[in-house]
């Protein structure tokens, strides 16, 4: 228990440093762009396929319940809300925690144990700015984009799902979806993905920067980066639900 509290304190301190370093001049734009490309490139296919399938599956599975109430006409309404508000953003964040979080943890971890981070320091480069700020910025920026993409693709999946048993025309489906979705569904859902992205980036970097010597140290960094950032995604999601509830945005 004590260890957990200490760990939380250290992570908070590490994250606090991000805000101090980011305002200092000389933003490493090239490295930031490289990281954004890398994140998109690595996780786009998986996010896209998973989001599409989730949309499809959730729609197919929701159908019988609605049929029971004679409310199958509500199918697009119901699935679009749950897809856009919860499923697409959380699935995106979890996939990225797995792929990007572990990637950053392993990359920085191996740079740490082979002294590459020290080498940057002696080469006139602030390693926190060069490695951490750019990666955290990239995850904070890219994960919302991926989530919006996932929203869209899961709705396409939903369309296919709605047409497997019943018949819903293309126009009817989309007009129902857009009638249902209001700003208060989309804005909080996108906003929380910024926090997901930040959490994934910070945890990956923190674990990498603090890995121990030895190869199992690097593997462990990658592993615990995934575990902690996935957990954080759920905690942040819970918080987001509470906050939107309190603000009465629904």
């Amino acid at each position, binding site marked *: 228990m004590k260890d957990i509290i200490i760990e939380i304190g250290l992570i908070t301190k590490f994250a606090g440093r991000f805000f101090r370093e980011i305002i200092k001049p000389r933003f490493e734009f090239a490295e930031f762009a490289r990281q954004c490309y890398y994140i998109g490139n690595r996780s786009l296919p998986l996010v896209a396929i998973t989001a599409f399938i989730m949309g499809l599956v959730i729609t197919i599975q929701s159908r019988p319940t609605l049929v029971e109430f004679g409310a199958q006409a509500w199918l697009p309404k119901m699935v679009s809300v749950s897809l856009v508000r919860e499923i697409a953003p959380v699935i995106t964040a979890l996939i990225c925690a797995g792929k990007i979080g572990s990637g950053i943890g392993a990359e920085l971890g*191996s*740079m740490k*144990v*082979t*002294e*590459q981070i*020290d*080498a*940057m*320091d*002696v*080469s*006139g*480069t*602030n390693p926190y700015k060069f490695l951490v700020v750019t990666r955290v910025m990239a995850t904070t920026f890219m994960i919302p984009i991926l989530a919006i993409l996932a929203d869209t693709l899961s709705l396409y999946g939903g369309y296919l799902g709605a047409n497997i048993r019943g018949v819903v025309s293309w126009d009817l489906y989309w007009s129902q979806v857009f009638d249902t979705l209001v700003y208060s569904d989309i804005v909080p859902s996108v906003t929380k993905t910024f926090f997901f992205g930040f959490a994934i980036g910070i945890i990956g970097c923190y674990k990498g920067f603090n890995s121990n010597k030895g190869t199992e140290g690097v593997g462990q960094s990658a592993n615990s980066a995934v575990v902690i950032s996935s957990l954080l995604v759920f905690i942040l999601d819970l918080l987001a639900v509470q906050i939107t509830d309190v603000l009465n945005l629904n």
Partner: protein
Amino acid sequence: MKAESKKEIFKEGTVNSNEVISIRNLYMAFGENKVLNGFDFDLHRGENIVVLGKSGSGKSVLIKCIIGLLKPDKGSINVLGENVPELNTTDLDKMRVKVGFLFQSNALYDSMTVRENLEFPLRRHWINTSKMEVNNLVMEALTNVGLPHTVDMMPSELSGGMRKRVALARTLILKPEIILYDEPTTGLDPITGKEISNLMLEVQKKYNTSSIIISHDINCVKIVANRIVILIDGLCYATGTYVQLQNSKDKKVKQFFE
């Protein structure tokens, strides 16, 4: 005014004297683990000093304090007239252009080619050079370590000895006055180790450097050392030439030469 003139005298003093690095009363501990306990040490211009010590005795900590990667708890580290623990980031960067560091694990950037690895310190220290000059400097440094043909390879394609050479080239590209070597031959086979030791001597002649070499490889020590310092219990336990220390009667000194 007064302070300034004092500083001038101080600088004059160090330029005239022969010492490029001078460490006094250095203390460094990690929690309960007292690593350095009042270490004193001088490096003279043109000299190759080997610091001998057991694994975990604080050799790496010592040179990481010199380059400013670690901040000592107490003591002064005078490098080319500046007290390292008191330098701000800008002055530290200026000092690091003049002091090269060869890491034990080479620390070549995995994601970059050999050329990009060598360009990194040049670009990062904002040394104004044209593209052509950068290329010339890269090729010059690589030629001096005997590996000009590896310029477009990735570090993962190189052997251990080649990586060591490339890492040395990356240190040399800034034409440092002092080079700090952290166990340059550890992990290499004896023949490659000997090649690296000879290369260090060549570099010393060509670049006119002074060096601190951390090692416990006695073959390397024999080749490169002008003087040896033995680090035990965080103190400078003994110092002397290879022959002097080899013939020492002291048990703790002797064990390094067996």
